[in-house]
């Protein structure tokens, strides 16, 4: 009897052996040795036997014992694909190699415009779909262990032992997979170690099954003829075959053969040479035949020998044990163990690649937000993501095993997985054969197929009231009888498997087709579609059309080092630099180089992620909407920035213009100042000349008459007064212009102000002037500075007295009211001011007739300043006879700022 400890020891030794094989293979591959074996069609064919899992090893016999020859369908599907459809596979392999595809999800997403959504969908579906399959492996290993364990312990403890065993098996497989699969990052370096280990296991499981079969046929039954006779006698021979079930099973297994992530992994991703496929197309069906050769004999003998109620899935193990063939049983156990472990390792590896490339990495890229350049080593992140994914996937398998009770027939569990992954087929085939297929179509078809599969296959597998309430089975979802999981649309009475496969696949394909026709592919989808469909007659290289002019090769280098590793990246870059004929080790980022780099990176992180990463650096892909939006955002910022610049430069231009104006004004002011000083100088020097001349005459000349002395002294005196008045006016004007004058707002009566002005002006003498007024019109109350206003009026009246050239000079003062304004008009009967001088009279030093003027020409300038400060204005109005000064005043003065903005 084999003890459990012996069993575990044997297992550990076996696993250690596999490790050594894998390690040696990888080392050889690294040194470029042993390719005759590692890259041989034999190993490729054997690695395809990953299809044959514990389901095949144990389950086929159980299947045969339960359902007769139907188990054959599971082998027929793949065989038909290999023999009849190898050109489909060849197309997949070619696409996989040219596009550096890392997984099924990668291929489909790349085909449909590098859609990460599609990749995520497929990844999730694949994980969900394969989970029962992994549970199946756990179950089979656990069952096989329990056979040995139950021989040691009481049957009562078996159940509990099973759970513990399943846990440890799962844990062991997880560790095993992590150690095997994630030592090296680049998937396209191929997992030589894993592949060779799988090949070894393929041999072990074939030998084990053949050995058990030979023992049964020749050791128990006693020869081929006797065996055939026993088969005829057994119930298996009488099983009726159901045509629809056979068709459905063949279709679903054929589909699964192509779509299972692990099959895709070994068949497409790990493929070294397309020609291997040609050999495998006949060699693999042969392997399948060999491995299924003794299924029926073992089942028949098992049914005969084993007590009723014993699990037919374990006949491969229990039949030799019952015959005391411990060594053979141990070999059979190893065969089953091999089948299970190889499947779990490759399946989880394939799934973890998908998960890390399509879910974890994009999330990380988005969350880190800094892109691939700045933050840490991407390799570390990728490897951690893969390890985490492996643990998650195996944990899911374990949980499914616990949830489903670990009691289902292995074949039934396997079929659920097959049905799930078969949903990828329409999108996959459509993608590589039909250019009209679109992303939207693929998403719609996959969603429909997957939902139906969940509803009709996966959820019911937990049994009534397991995942779905029993009432749904009888009454349908939401109480609609059309939505019963095993009788969709009211079509009942079909085998549940056929039912599920039919509805899910046909609706999937139909929706994919119809939606594809009615939706429009994006430009990138068109490009990729052409690349994929015409893979045999187009030049190589992924679409994407990097406009690589701006991508710094240095940035690409930094990013590549993090993904490929420093040595790898450097040699890749150097190789391309050399190819470009450059002396340095950095190639120009030509479109060709960037595409090659993208393929290289895609091998590690998937097409969509690689595209996004390169896009982040090069930023020139004009096709992905997201990139476009990012670019658009950026251009918007640039536009914004440049418009800001424009505004700035416009402001600068304006400022420059303003400065120019100011400068001009300053120059003007400077000239004005010069002129003003010159004027003042003149006005000062003129009286001083007289003063000096006459004072010298008085001083130096003897014998002046008294009259002369008196006259000259009075000239000096009047010139002195003139000087004083000039200085007074100047100061007054300066104070007014600078706004330093304080105006006193008083309530005054206009009549009083005019009265005062007229009296003062007339008192100063200087000619006779008759002033005509209308006192009642002047009776207006004002709020203003009465003294300043009087000063203005005095000036005007004095001017009239000085300049009115009429014989009988008359000044008429008329007051008009206009809304809240008062207009005081001063008109005389003189000839008025000549038109060309009218606009000069308010300027400083403007004197029309110098000989007759005694003032310095500042009077009206001062008047204008005062009236402006009082909130009004003064103007000269030409009349038919003479002219008129109009003083316009607000009733209530709002004292204005000085006209010239001198700071006070």
């Amino acid at each position, binding site marked *: 009897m084999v003890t459990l400890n012996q069993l575990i020891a044997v297992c550990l030794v076996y696993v250690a052996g596999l490790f050594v094989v894998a390690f040696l293979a990888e080392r050889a591959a690294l040194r470029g040795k042993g390719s005759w074996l590692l890259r041989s069609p034999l190993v490729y064919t054997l690695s395809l036997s990953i299809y044959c899992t514990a389901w095949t090893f144990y389950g086929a016999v159980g299947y045969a014992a339960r359902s007769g020859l139907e188990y054959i369908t599971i082998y027929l599907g793949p065989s038909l694909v290999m023999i009849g459809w190898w050109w489909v596979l060849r197309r997949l392999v070619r696409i996989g190699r040219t596009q550096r595809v890392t997984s099924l999800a990668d291929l489909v997403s790349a085909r449909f415009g590098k859609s990460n959504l599609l990749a995520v969908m497929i990844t999730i579906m694949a994980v969900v779909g394969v989970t029962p399959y992994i549970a199946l492996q756990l179950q089979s290993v656990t069952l096989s262990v329990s056979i040995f364990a139950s021989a040691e312990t009481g049957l009562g403890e078996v159940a509990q032992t099973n759970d513990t065993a399943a846990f440890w098996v799962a844990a062991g497989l997880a560790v095993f997979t992590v150690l095997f699969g994630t030592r090296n990052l680049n998937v396209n370096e191929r997992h030589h170690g894993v592949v060779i280990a799988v090949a070894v296991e393929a041999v072990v499981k074939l030998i084990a099954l053949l050995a058990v079969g030979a023992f049964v046929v020749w050791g128990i039954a006693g020869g081929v003829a006797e065996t055939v006779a026993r088969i005829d006698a057994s119930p298996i021979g009488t099983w009726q075959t159901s045509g629809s079930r056979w068709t459905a099973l063949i279709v679903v297994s054929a589909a699964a053969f192509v779509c299972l992530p692990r099959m895709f992994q070994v068949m497409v991703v790990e493929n070294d040479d397309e020609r291997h496929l040609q050999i495998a197309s006949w060699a693999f069906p042969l392997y399948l035949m060999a491995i299924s050769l003794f299924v029926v004999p073992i089942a028949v003998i098992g049914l005969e020998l084993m007590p009723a109620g014993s699990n037919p899935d374990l006949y491969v193990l229990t039949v030799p044990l019952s015959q005391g063939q411990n060594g053979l049983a141990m070999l059979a156990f190893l065969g089953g163990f091999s089948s299970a472990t190889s499947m779990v390792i490759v399946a989880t590896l394939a799934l973890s690649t998908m998960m890390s490339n399509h879910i974890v990495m994009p999330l990380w890229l988005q969350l880190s937000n800094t892109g691939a350049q700045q933050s840490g080593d991407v390799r570390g992140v990728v490897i951690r993501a893969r390890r985490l994914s492996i643990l998650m996937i195996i944990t899911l398998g374990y949980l499914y095993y616990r949830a489903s009770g670990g009691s289902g027939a292995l074949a039934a569990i396997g079929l659920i997985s097959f049905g799930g992954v078969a949903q990828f087929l329409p999108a996959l085939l459509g993608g590589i054969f039909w250019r009209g297929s679109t992303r939207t179509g693929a998403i719609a078809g996959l969603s429909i197929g997957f939902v139906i599969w969940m509803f009709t296959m996966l959820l019911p597998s937990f049994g009534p009231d397991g995942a779905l309430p029993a009432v749904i089975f009888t009454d349908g979802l939401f109480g609609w009888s059309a939505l019963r999981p095993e009788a969709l649309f009211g079509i009942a009475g079909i085998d549940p498997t056929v039912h599920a496969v039919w509805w899910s696949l046909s609706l999937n394909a139909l929706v994919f087709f119809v939606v594809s026709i009615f939706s429009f592919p994006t430009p990138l989808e068109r490009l990729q579609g052409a690349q994929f469909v015409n893979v045999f007659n187009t030049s190589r290289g992924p679409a994407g059309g990097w406009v690589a002019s701006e991508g710094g090769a240095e940035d690409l280098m930094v990013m590549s080092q993090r993904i490929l590793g420093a040595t790898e990246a450097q040699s890749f870059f150097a190789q391309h630099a050399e190819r470009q004929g450059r002396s340095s080790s950095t190639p120009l980022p030509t479109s060709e180089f960037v595409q090659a780099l993208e393929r290289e990176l895609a091998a590690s992180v998937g097409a969509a992620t690689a595209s996004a990463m390169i896009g982040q650096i090069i930023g020139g892909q004009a096709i992905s909407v997201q990139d476009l939006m990012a670019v658009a955002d950026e251009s918007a910022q640039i536009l914004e920035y440049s418009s800001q610049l424009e505004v700035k430069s416009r402001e600068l231009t304006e400022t420059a213009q303003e400065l120019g104006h100011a400068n001009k004004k300053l120059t003007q002011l400077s000239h004005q100042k010069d002129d003003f000083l*010159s004027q003042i*100088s*003149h*006005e*000062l*020097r*003129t*009286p*001083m*000349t*007289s*003063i*000096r*001349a*006459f004072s*010298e*005459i008085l001083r*130096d*000349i003897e014998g002046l008459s008294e009259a002369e002395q008196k006259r000259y002294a009075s*000239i000096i005196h009047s*010139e002195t007064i003139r000087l004083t008045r000039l200085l007074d006016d100047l100061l007054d004007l300066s104070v007014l212009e600078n706004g330093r004058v304080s105006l006193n707002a008083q309530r005054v009566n206009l009549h009083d102000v005019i009265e005062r002005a007229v009296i003062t002006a007339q008192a100063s003498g200087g000619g006779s002037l008759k002033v005509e007024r209308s006192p009642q019109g002047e009776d207006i109350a004002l709020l203003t500075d009465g003294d300043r206003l009087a000063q203005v009026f005095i000036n005007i009246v004095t001017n009239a007295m000085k300049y009115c050239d009429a014989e009988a000079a008359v000044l008429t003062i008329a007051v008009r009211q206009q809304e809240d304004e008062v207009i005081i008009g001063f008109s005389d009967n003189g000839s008025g001011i000549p038109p060309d001088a009218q606009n000069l009279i308010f300027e400083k030093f403007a004197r029309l*007739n*110098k*000989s007759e003027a005694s003032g310095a020409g500042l009077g009206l300038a001062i008047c204008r300043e005062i009236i402006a400060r009082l909130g009004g204005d003064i103007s000269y109005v030409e009349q038919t006879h003479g002219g008129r000064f109009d003083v316009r005043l607000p009733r209530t003065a709002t004292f204005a700022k000085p006209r010239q903005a001198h700071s006070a």
Partner: protein
Amino acid sequence: MSKHVVLVEDETNIAEAIRFLLGREGWRVETLANGGNAAEVIRAAMPDLVMLDVMLPGKTGFEILAELRSDAALSDLPILMLTARGQNRDREMAEQAGVSRFMTKPFSNDEILTAVRELTDGRLDKAQSDA
């Protein structure tokens, strides 16, 4: 024959002072208060000396100066310009226009008498010897 000077000056007090000073020296002083017809008057009078203010009604002193100097017959006429605008620019302009002497107001009586003598002595001597 007494010395004849045409004084173009609109400031009556200044004109009176000059008239008094030159009169004591034996000058016959003809005063014009407006620049408008000064050039014609001078051309007709052919004085021994012209005293010219700058800021004048009618025409400025510079305009009168230019007019006088454009007449070949008056090219030797001594012209004394008196201005209250004490700017170098004016002096330069006047000298370029051919002024004989340029003086800034106010001036001392000695200065003006000296200037008048200097401008006319040689010429008068020459005229006397010619006569």
